[in-house]
């Protein structure tokens, strides 16, 4: 009988999967001391102090912004090219500049390059005392025409990367949202093509590499005056181009009524939802209020959308909302993935959440957002990387003032009511782009918004 019982036990274990011991009991508790009920008091507070920044001009008109961050463990050398051309053309030129820089074997820095609708940024990060190397590397790329081989490789790389981006669902969703918000026809295609960005890399190089529209930003353990001399030595020979950049005209933001687009993408286990609103555009004053609104909506786990969709309903891993300052218009947008069966619920939760932020002040989320931005600003004064980014943004927006001081001052006075007023202005007529299987079409149509289908 006992043998039979043992056999049964073995069979149960074998058939029923792993068997685990019960929880360890009796459980001996950690004493629940009274002081655990309250967090400790903050030990003072930290003031925001902007680093010393010197603004000067090289003889060819290039702006130099040099920030002395004395104890930084590295230095960043950033070349910022302001442009008003089609974004695809800027990305194409950025690819060529990166290709050219990487082919320079003498380069001893860490290089990163990116392009947006307003700028191309090339960043060389170097060890303290090696700013000279980084400036030499920058000069090697900018002061002579791009080699034919570099151009050929860059053209091919750019097209291949565009093709890859076209396969990346989130990229397609964001590009489509951007096209709807900015009204730029070319951006409405998920993949850039020679018909849109038709000009060649040498032409773009000649037009855009113009010291009058460029800044050199250096941040780290440097001396401003010595940096100016080095910059003059390496980049002072960069001449102004004969022809100037053609201005790419964007149509003014025209907002249709709420609208949805569905990308048919079979085999996706999730439905990817992108949403966007027209937001304040790039100006000489950084729009702190819009950054706060983005964080109130979707940044930390406690933000409005994450609390509603993730924490309460377990619908998504997370929602992140971004504020993008474009030259013609800004965009407030977010992305989230949900189970296809819950698409309708998710859209409803999104609309309800937008409405909630429009209708009432959100003091808790407001306070969190403001304090997060304030804490970030403290780092922005101490990390050479962030100091350089701030100065680069400042140049792109045509700002003369000390950006960090301006932002700090705004954070001291901003109120939850300001964010509600902004939300009332921004959060209406949402544009939705959904990627997923064809079956989602029924949900979107049922949901009421006009739906455009993209295969």
């Amino acid at each position, binding site marked *: 009988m006992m043998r039979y019982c043992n056999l049964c036990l073995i069979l149960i274990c074998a058939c029923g*999967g*792993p068997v*685990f011991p*019960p*929880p*360890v009991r*009796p*459980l*001996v*508790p*950690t*004493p*629940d*001391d009274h002081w*655990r009920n309250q*967090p400790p008091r*903050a*030990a003072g*507070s*930290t003031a925001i102090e902007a680093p010393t920044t010197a603004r000067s001009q090289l003889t060819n008109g290039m702006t130099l912004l040099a920030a002395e961050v004395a*104890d930084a*463990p*590295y230095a960043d050398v950033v070349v910022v090219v302001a442009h008003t051309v089609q974004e695809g053309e800027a990305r194409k030129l950025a690819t060529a500049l990166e290709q050219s820089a*990487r082919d320079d*074997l003498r*380069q*001893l820095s*860490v290089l990163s390059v990116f392009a947006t609708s307003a700028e191309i940024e090339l960043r060389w*990060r*170097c*060890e303290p005392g090696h700013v000279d190397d980084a400036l030499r590397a920058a000069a090697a790329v900018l002061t002579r025409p791009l080699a034919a*081989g570099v151009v050929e*490789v860059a053209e091919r790389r750019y097209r*291949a990367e565009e093709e*890859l981006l076209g*396969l990346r669902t989130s990229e397609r969703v964001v590009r489509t949202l951007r096209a709807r918000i900015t009204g730029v026809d070319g951006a409405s295609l998920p993949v850039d093509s020679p018909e849109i960005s038709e000009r060649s890399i040498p032409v773009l190089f000649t037009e855009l590499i113009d010291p009058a529209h460029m800044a050199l930003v250096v941040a780290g353990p440097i001396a401003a005056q010595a940096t100016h001399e080095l910059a003059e030595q390496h980049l002072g020979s960069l001449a102004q181009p004969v022809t100037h950049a053609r201005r790419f005209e964007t149509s003014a933001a025209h907002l249709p009524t709420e609208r949805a687009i569905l990308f048919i993408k079979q085999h996706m*286990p*999730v439905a990817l939802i992108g949403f966007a609103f027209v937001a304040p555009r790039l100006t000489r004053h950084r729009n702190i209020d819009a950054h706060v609104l983005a964080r109130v909506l979707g940044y*930390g*786990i*406690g933000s409005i959308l994450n609390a509603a969709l*993730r*924490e309460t309903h*377990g*619908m*998504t*891993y997370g929602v992140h909302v971004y504020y993008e300052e474009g030259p013609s218009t800004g965009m407030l947008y977010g992305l989230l*993935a*949900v*189970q296809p069966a819950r698409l309708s619920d998710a859209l409803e939760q999104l609309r309800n959440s937008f409405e909630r932020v429009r209708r009432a002040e959100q003091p808790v989320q407001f*306070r*969190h957002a403001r304090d*997060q931005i304030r*804490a*970030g600003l*403290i*780092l922005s004064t*101490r*990390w050479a*990387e962030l100091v350089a980014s701030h100065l680069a943004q400042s140049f792109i927006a045509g700002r003369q003032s000390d950006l960090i001081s301006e932002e700090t001052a705004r954070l001291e006075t901003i109120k939850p009511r300001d964010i509600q007023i902004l939300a009332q202005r921004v959060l209406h007529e949402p544009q939705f782009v959904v990627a997923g299987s064809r079956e989602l079409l029924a949900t979107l149509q049922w949901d009421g918004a006009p739906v455009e289908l993209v295969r």
Partner: protein
Amino acid sequence: MLGWSPMAAKSGMTGGAIALVLLMAALASADGSLVVQSQLPNGLTVVIQADHRLPRVGVAVTYAVGRRDDPRGLEGLAHIVEHALADASTHVPGGTVQHLEALGGVASAMTTPDFTTMYEELPREYWETGLWLESDRMAFMLSALDTKRLERIRAVVKREWEERIGKVDRSAAAIVSSLYAGNHPYARLVDDASGLDVFTLDQVRWFFQRRYGPASAVLAIVGDVDPTLVDAAVRKYFGSIRGSSAFVRRAQTPPHWPDEQLAAREHSIDPGLDRNWRWERLDLAWQTPAAYAPGDAELDIVALMLQERLRKRLLNDGTVFAVGVQHPSRQLGSPFTIRLEVSPQHSLDGILSSVMAEVSRLRSASAEFEPARRRQVIRGLRELDNLAWRAYRLAESACSGTLHMVEDDVERYGSLGDKDVARAVLTYLLPGPHVVVRSQFSRFASQPRSIDR
């Protein structure tokens, strides 16, 4: 309100008797600041590094439990516990991450094959709050965990899996996993969402109580703090925590692999990608030394050098569309991987030969060595600003038995020469990859395939 833990029943220790009993080590970092490592009577290892350059503090707690410790049939359990720790605890019912974010902090958590680490960076004035909160997660997470909360956590982890883990990362993880023989802890690290529905609350409790006590954990604090004050606060917040004795893993060292298992093997694998993908793919993988072992830093530099060589040889002429060379370090041995997205008109065999020819050329002094070495040093310098990451590295390295600071990276990469790198190439890469995977996407019809061992 109780923080569940069996340790006190074994040791008979009380909170009042807890004291900092063992000063294990005091090391000087590159900038001269002291790193103090100690251990509490309940087994918690504590590492403190004062650095007054930035007005911030990084706090990390690493538990010696990773994905390789998931019980068979309950794969994903360590990941669930990570999310539970990031959720609420008894005295932080609104959520621990939310609490940190409200202070202007940045909080994150990671479950690797070897460890689970909760880490955050805070304004310096909240350093004590960081300790209070981490101690509450450690001692009082289970008290706040009920079935409803577990269901919500499970739902979020499933969404994470669908969104992130279940997509492109899957084939790369499968390739790395296939480097190891069947009984090796890394041999079954491919995430599988099917297990997520299985866990019960009792199983989560059992797993946490057995493995996540203070004796299996390391607490690290880095930043603008007074070590004496931190020391006292650590005793206050963590000293009374009861926990199980340190969990001893079954296999702490890499087992010996028979030669035939190390021979190059070829696999077919489901690409897990968009079916419109028109490129072919070639993956190569080698077994390399464990984190911080001889050869580990050298191969980090080799990865950068090889990336540049392959870019110039294969990417510039359009043979491949993308090149990725990776060398993530792990406790029981690391994978060195190369992934090439190949234009369909080129022969994968020909590309494989080209790759191995470039590997072979790395034996001789190379023009790429100095730029690659400098880039590794600069990356280390950049990490000095990231206090959360520094705390993470301190906690995780102490948990693996070798205290390692970000500053040490700057030093260890800085001291390497081209001969060291050549030796590593000769020893680890030239014998040939242990796994070669050719993914010819047009061959994959509707039926995905798993690894063919």
